[in-house]
Each structure stands twice: as structure tokens, then as C-alpha cells.
């Protein structure tokens, strides 16, 4: 039976099931197949806070959304075109996000009375008409998988578990994905248990064959490759990209990297990833807590390492006192904050941007630091290198603000040429810098950085500490004038950091409204702006990578527009800074839902502004 093939320009698929159903893996594989094909991609995993919530419950639902297209996309998609629901809980938890007309593929085997009751379905949605208006494909995923594996030497449980590969096979067929890499992946993954390789491969192929043969799926789809910049690509999450960026910074600076960290969601994977790269001279330490983590890191920085500590909001709250010490010591230090929804423990697996003010102001005394934020998963690589550049050149703590959305989301990454990455080499002090001997607080007039004289350097023995220091000598000083001078110098040091100008995307130069953003809102803001422009509504977009110091041209940029709007996943933290600094009546547009903005809601909001501007 030859099926009809239809061309699509983009598709959003959400795989949803129980935590034990392997949805993250399924989504990952589908993404990988899709990437191979050259589509542009963006993904959004979403998993429960519990390790294993009771099977079949709403809190136990885990999902993975992938958006792929034949053009360059910016977000994982607002609403799925296709939902794969492995059980009633997955259906119930996700149905609200589906537009009418969407496709739903259901695992009918799980729609038992017991499972329906567990999530409060009074009637079976397969029968009660509540799914009218969707294109529903009921598929007995479990039993067909088990049947396909009949006779193989595996347990019933293992056979049932392979149902996600059946589903993947079906979807791969449906969207004409190349499946060699998945088969290779299964070989690798189950190398130790060949019977599972066979089982999973069989399940995958059975799913594929089911698509090909069954009448239920009359049409097959294709999404052509996107026109992307030539080069080598891989799909990458923000946390991995950030970790690799730190490895790269180590290589390009010639310094050993030291990561001191205490596990915390959603930052732990940075520790996990870096702990694999010891061969680059990367040392990772799981410290007893966040304070020890930043302390050990500062100790390593003092000794001449590129010191990094990674955590999430609650951890940064604990590190404030030590960061304040690093400000006084004027040593390089990178503090990675993978933001999550707060306050307090909040919603640890959900994203948010509400740590900006803490990054800028969350320490006692005047304790200014540099603040840098990546805008997309792959951009975490570059942002990490930029943070290292600033920390090393200016001898200052740098807060690198990622978030849960960037951390776990993924996108294709054009692999950089390593030799083209910034040269981060630094000179340690090696001899006295004044006729009177070594002056630890005698600054480089260009950068205002003090010398980095690491222990072990003969003749430069000196003492530093958290008490106020006299300019130049670094001796303890209680002199009022000196203190005032040092406070202002520390502030000036940050303001003196050279950062690139803020770029504005305003294709026709006719926009009167500017959307200003920072961090992970880049994708949805960009998508919304594009959509508006396509509809002939001019709008300008600018996205801040540097929150402290701000690029010098921000004032100019802001004044070019009649209205400035700042969408943030907080209650207006960047807006507060912009308003204070530039006295511009920036509009704060805020949502604090633990989820990224959708492009469509931003488009809607911006449309009003543009029309009324």
C-alpha cells in the first residue's frame, strides 16, 4: 500500500506518558533523527519533580515536545500538532494545550477503568465524544509491542517497556525520519544486554511497519530540511553547551578549570557533564553545600584556576556572602545560576527569570559584579566563554544567568571552529609592579584589574582579605576617603568592562515599538516579532546579553523608539533597572508561570502595542 505523502513546513509533536514510559528518551531519539535530516529544531522537555511519582497519576506525567521545520525556528512551539499519549494521565494533562484539529495517538491498552479512575475520568474519553474535533488514532501500543516480541527471550516487563520504541517507529514512519541512528543508538545503549537490543529494534520496526500497513494512517508527512548555515551540527541542551563552553574556556585560557558545585535541579547536569572532562584538566568537586562550593572555587581561583560554581537560585542565595568576598578580593569567579521558579523551593523543575535582581543586588554592601545571560540552548556555549573572558580579564565575579528552559531545552548547534574561539590567555603577575615592591591593588589603567599574583610566585608574597583595603598597597584601611574611593572604583571596574553594543533587529527601520528582552525569552520574542513583521506590522527587537555592565548604546537605542516593552518571566526585574537607569517608561509585560512565553501570546500583546503606538 503506497500512502500519500504530504509536505509540511513545520510540526510540533509532544510525546507524553508516565515517568516510567521513557518519554524523554523517545523524544531525544526523534529529535536526533530529525536533526540528521537537516530540519531546524527546538525542544522542550517537561518532567515531574518526583523521581517516580506513582504510575498513572497526573503528577507522574513526563513529556517531551519537539518542534521541527524547514525554516529557522526559535521556540519549541506553542501548541502541539500531534500528541502521543501513552496513558490517560498523559492525555488529561496535555489535552488543554492542543488546538482543535490536532492529532492524538493514544495507547488504548492503558485506557482501563482503573487507570481512568486514577486521574478522575468518569467516562472513557475514547468513547464519550470528548475528543471529537481531534484526529484521534487509538493504537494498542503495549499489546502490539508484546505480540511483536513474542518468542524473544525477555521478560514480559521488558517487552512492555519497549512500547516507546514501537511508538517511535510509528512516528518515525509518519514523519519520514531516517532511522539508522536510532538503531545504532539502541545497539550502543543496550550493548551489555543484546536481548534488549533485539527487542527494542524489533519494537521500533514493528511500529514503523504498523504505520506503513495500517489503514488508520492514510497520509505520511515530510518536512524538508531547513536552509541552515553550512557546517557541522549537533543537537545540544543548554546545560551541556554551558559545560562545554567552560571546557573550551579552559582550553583557550590555558588554565585548569575548577568547578565547585552542590547538586541542585536544574543545574546538576553541568556538574555531571564537567566531571566527564577531566582530561582537559577539569577538576570537579561536589562540595558539602553551596557555600563550600563557592568557597572552594574561590580558593581555586586564588591559586590560578578558572573557578566556576554552578547552582540554581536557592544556591545563589547562600553564596552571596562569599561572592561579596570575591568582590573585595577582585579575583575571577564564575557563578552559574540556572534559574528555576521561586521563591524558596518553588517549582524546581520549572523555569523562571526571577533571579536577576539577586544577581545584580543580592549582596551586602556595594558589591557590584558582571552579569551575563545566554539566549538559547546553544548560546550557553558562547555565553560561558564570554563570562570567562570578563572574569579573567577584569578579575571579577561574573554571574551567568541561565534558566531551566535553556538548561533542558535543545536546538541544533553549528559547531564552532575551536581556533576561532576567543583567546583567553592571562598573564599572572610574576614580579614586583612598583619600585616599592609588589602592590596587589595597583591596577591596570585600561581594565582597572589588579594583578593576579598566585601563590607560588617568588617575591610577590602578600595578604588579601575581606576588610577594606588601601588603594594600591592592599593593606587594611579604615580611612574614610580611601573607602569611598574603593567603593567607587569597584563600581567603575564593572562599568569599565568592554562589552559589545546592543544590536537591534529592525529590518525596515520603521518600527516605533521596541521589545527588549534578556535570557531565554529570546526565542518566543523573536518568533512573535517575525510573525508581526510577516503581517506587515513593524517592530524592533533587542536582546541584552550583558545585564551588567549594560552596553554603552542602550540609552541611544531606547530613545529611538516611542514605546519600549520588556517581557520577562518575573514581575519586571529588568524593567526596573532600565527605568531607573534611563528614565524610560518601559512597559513590563510579565508572566510567572514556570513556563516559557508562547510566541502567540507575545504576538497578541505586541500587536496591540504596535497598533496603538
Amino acid at each position, binding site marked *: 500500500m503506497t500512502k500519500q505523502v504530504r509536505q509540511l513546513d513545520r510540526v510540533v509533536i509532544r510525546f507524553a506518558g508516565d515517568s516510567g514510559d521513557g518519554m524523554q528518551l523517545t523524544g531525544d531519539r526523534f529529535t536526533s533523527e530529525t536533526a540528521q535530516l537537516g530540519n531546524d529544531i527546538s525542544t522542550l522537555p517537561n518532567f515531574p519533580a518526583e523521581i517516580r511519582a506513582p504510575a498513572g497519576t497526573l503528577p507522574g506525567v513526563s513529556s517531551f515536545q519537539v518542534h521541527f521545520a524547514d525554516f529557522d525556528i526559535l521556540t519549541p512551539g506553542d501548541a502541539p500538532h500531534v500528541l502521543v499519549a501513552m496513558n490517560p494521565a498523559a492525555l488529561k494533562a496535555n489535552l488543554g494545550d492542543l488546538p482543535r484539529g490536532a492529532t492524538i495517538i493514544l495507547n488504548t491498552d492503558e485506557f482501563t477503568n482503573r487507570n481512568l479512575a486514577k486521574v478522575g475520568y468518569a467516562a472513557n474519553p475514547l468513547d464519550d465524544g470528548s475528543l471529537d474535533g481531534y484526529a484521534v488514532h487509538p493504537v494498542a501500543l503495549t499489546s502490539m509491542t508484546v505480540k511483536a516480541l513474542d518468542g524473544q527471550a525477555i521478560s514480559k516487563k521488558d517487552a512492555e517497556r519497549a512500547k516507546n520504541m514501537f511508538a517511535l517507529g510509528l512516528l518515525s514512519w509518519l514523519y519520514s525520519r531516517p532511522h539508522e541512528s536510532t538503531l545504532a543508538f539502541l545497539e550502543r545503549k543496550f550493548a551489555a544486554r543484546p536481548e534488549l537490543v533485539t527487542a527494542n529494534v524489533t519494537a521500533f520496526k514493528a511500529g514503523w511497519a504498523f504505520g506503513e500497513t495500517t489503514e488508520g494512517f492514510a497520509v505520511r508527512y515530510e518536512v524538508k530540511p531547513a536552509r541552515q548555515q553550512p557546517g557541522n551540527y549537533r543537537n545540544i541542551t543548554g546545560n551541556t553547551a554551558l559545560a562545554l563552553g567552560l571546557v573550551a574556556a579552559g582550553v583557550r585560557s590555558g588554565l585548569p578549570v575548577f568547578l565547585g558545585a552542590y547538586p541542585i535541579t536544574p543545574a546538576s547536569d553541568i556538574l555531571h557533564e564537567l566531571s566527564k572532562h577531566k582530561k582537559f584538566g577539569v577538576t570537579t568537586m561536589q562540595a558539602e553545600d553551596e557555600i563550600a562550593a563557592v568557597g572552594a572555587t574561590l580558593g*581555586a581561583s586564588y591559586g590560578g584556576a578558572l573557578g566556576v560554581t554552578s547552582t540554581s537560585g536557592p544556591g545563589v542565595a547562600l553564596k552571596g556572602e562569599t561572592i561579596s568576598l570575591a568582590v573585595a*578580593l577582585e579575583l575571577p569567579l564564575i557563578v552559574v545560576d540556572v534559574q528555576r521558579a521561586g521563591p524558596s523551593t518553588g517549582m524546581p523543575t520549572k523555569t523562571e527569570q526571577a533571579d536577576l535582581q539577586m544577581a545584580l543586588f543580592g549582596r551586602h554592601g556595594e558589591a557590584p559584579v558582571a552579569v551575563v545571560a545566554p539566549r538559547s540552548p546553544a548560546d550557553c556555549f558562547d555565553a560561558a566563554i564570554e563570562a570567562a573572558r570578563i572574569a579573567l580579564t577584569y578579575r571579577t565575579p561574573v554571574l551567568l544567568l541561565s534558566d531551566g528552559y535553556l538548561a533542558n531545552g535543545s536546538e541544533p548547534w553549528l559547531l564552532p571552529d575551536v581556533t576561532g574561539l576567543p583567546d583567553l590567555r592571562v598573564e599572572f603577575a610574576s614580579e614586583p609592579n612598583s619600585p616599592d615592591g609588589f602592590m596587589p591593588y595597583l591596577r591596570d589603567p585600561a581594565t582597572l584589574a589588579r594583578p593576579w599574583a598566585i601563590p607560588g610566585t617568588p617575591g610577590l*608574597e602578600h595578604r588579601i582579605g*575581606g576588610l577594606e583595603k588601601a588603594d594600591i598597597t592592599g593593606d587594611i584601611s579604615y580611612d574614610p576617603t580611601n573607602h569611598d574611593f574603593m567603593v567607587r572604583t569597584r563600581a567603575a571596574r564593572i562599568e569599565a568592562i568592554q562589552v559589545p553594543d546592543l544590536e537591534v533587529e529592525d529590518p525596515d527601520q520603521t518600527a516605533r515599538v521596541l521589545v527588549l528582552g534578556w535570557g531565554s525569552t529570546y526565542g518566543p520574542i523573536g518568533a512573535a516579532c517575525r510573525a508581526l513583521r510577516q503581517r506587515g506590522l513593524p517592530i524592533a527587537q533587542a536582546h541584552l546579553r550583558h545585564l551588567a555592565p549594560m552596553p554603552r548604546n542602550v540609552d541611544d537605542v531606547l530613545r529611538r523608539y516611542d514605546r519600549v516593552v520588556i517581557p520577562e518571566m518575573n514581575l519586571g526585574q529588568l524593567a526596573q533597572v532600565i527605568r531607573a537607569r534611563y528614565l524610560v517608561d518601559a512597559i513590563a509585560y510579565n508572566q510567572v508561570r514556570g513556563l516559557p512565553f508562547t510566541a502567540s501570546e507575545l504576538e497578541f500583546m505586541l500587536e496591540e502595542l504596535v497598533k496603538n503606538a
Partner: protein
Amino acid sequence: MPDAKNVERAVTTAPIALKLTAKDFKSDQEVRWCPGCGDYAILAAVQAFMPELGIPRERIVFVSGIGCSSRFPYYMDTYGMHSIHGRAPAIATGLSTTRPDLSVWVVTGDGDALSIGGNHLIHALRRNVNLKILLFNNRIYGLTKGQYSPTSELGKVTKSTPAGSADSPFNPISLALGAEATFVARTIDSDRKHLQSVLRAAAGHRGSAFVEIYQNCNIFNDGAFDALKEPATRDDFTIRLEHGNPITFGRNAEWCVIHPPGGFGLEVRRTAEVEPHEIVTHDRTVAEPAYAFALSRLPGEDLRHSPIGVFRAVDRPSYDDLVRGQVAAARARLTGSPEEELTKLLNSGDTWTIM
């Protein structure tokens, strides 16, 4: 990690013939403790001991927290960091782990180490990081002007406890042993020779060496250790532990420590009343920490029967050695230049090419 080219450029690694004296370890900073403070004696003893290390000054680092005692680094003409309250062991751990070429010393107080810094201390000991930790125990908060500390005796009347403190103190030696410390010792500010002998043993230990130094704060807790210093009580109250020797004390060795059969722990007896073979011979290398722990419980509230010297000194791999070993082993597997390896790393996993 000292193989990074940059670090090498700045740091000498060649051994130098050293002719250092105590004076070489005196910095140009005016010493600012109260006249009469026990910290002076410790400083002088440490400065005089340093040349023995045979390590050039630039390879020695003192890291401290906050407190009177924590001003120590300013007075040593070595590298030094006066950090923040309680965090010195954590900071020193990062330094020691990345810089095996350095001799890293932590100076801390009873509040700094055992109150706010208790967690970092016990974890450093558990990890057995290469650090020499000198805890100046004056059983009071000096710098903040006289509140009680976790080593102050129960019922201590201080500014913050006008009705007497309500919490039993830590025994720092017991705590360290409970935290798996491999080297544990105690000494006294006023006994320079003993202090230096303990420093010597600590310096020779690979891993964390924990040294409690009884230190007199003559302003807020004067005479706290007088019982171990006054001629009247000194000899009967102090047990000088000497490796390989039977534990006897008193002016004429009239007291001894035995391990009563069927009893729990160690006890003090009149030497004349026990058989010589019953007297415990001090062995700091006993693997079982229960022995040192039992020793740590000998003193009463009046300090009677306070052992000083090295309680325990056993070998266990140190955290930083193991960690560096892992890194070194991984580096040994490095085939290309870092840039080449990085290129490989970035290009690993599922990649694809767009033409």
C-alpha cells in the same frame, strides 16, 4: 593542576637551597592583638618553626576565617588570605586540591571553626584534604567582644548569656575523631617547644592535620587554661602523649592511664597501684579511632587529665591526591593537543553536516 603553562610561568618549582629564619616569616604589618594575648606566643612559635619546613615562603599559604585568631595571615610573610567567617576550610580545600605544590595552612578560632564553620571543618577532615588546620581555642568569641563559644563550659556567663549558657560544649578532639580525622593533636600557646613538636608532626602528615591549640584570651576569658600552666596543677593535670611511650604523667610520673579490663574507655590511676604492663603505651597509629576517642574523653570539666600531643596520625588517601590522580589519569589518555581534543569533544555524539 600546576601543569597549566601559565601557572608554571609564574611559579618556581625548582627546589632552592633555603636559609630562612623566623624573621623571614614576619610581615611588615603591625601585630594588633591585645597585649598579653596568647596569639602572640603562637605566632612567634609558628614563625620560628616555618624555616624547618624547608619550603620557600612563596609556596606557603595561610588561609583564615574571621576572629582575633584569624588575623594571623597578615603577620606571616607568606601568601595569605583572611577570608570570611567559618569558610577557611572550604577555601583552602579548593586551593589545596588545585595546587599540590603549596603548603596550605588554615588558622581558625573556636567560633570560626566549630560554630559557623563546623560543617566545613568536619567535611575537610572526612575528605582528608592536605591542610594543616590550627584551631586557636580560647573558649570565647574574642573579636566580637566576649560571647560564649561552642567550647565554652556549660553555664558560662557572657554578654550573650547573662544567666549562663545552656549548651554543653563540643570536645573538638572528639568531634574531629567522629568526623574521621586522620591526624588529631592538641597543644598549648604557652609551651613553645611542645607547640612546635606538634606543628612538626602535623606538617609531616599527608592529609588533614587537625591541631587544637589552647590559647589564652586575657581580655574575655583570662586563665581558661591556667590549670595546665600553673605550677601547682600543671603536671598533675596535663598528660603528655608520646608515641611509643607508656602514658604516665605527674611530676614524678605518679599517674598513668590504663585500659581497665571489662571497662569502657580509658582511666587514670596511680602508677604505683597498677602493674607496669597495664599502663597504656601511646600509639598514634592505631587504626581504630576508638582509642584516640577514649583519650579525648579523659579530661574533666576542670581540665584535669588533659592529654596534649598527637592523639592520632594514621594514613588514608587524601581527597586531593585522589582527585588529582583521576585528573592525571584522564590527561594521560589525551592524545592530541587540547585544541584538537576539544574539537573532537565538540564534534562527538550525533552530528550532521549541512553543505
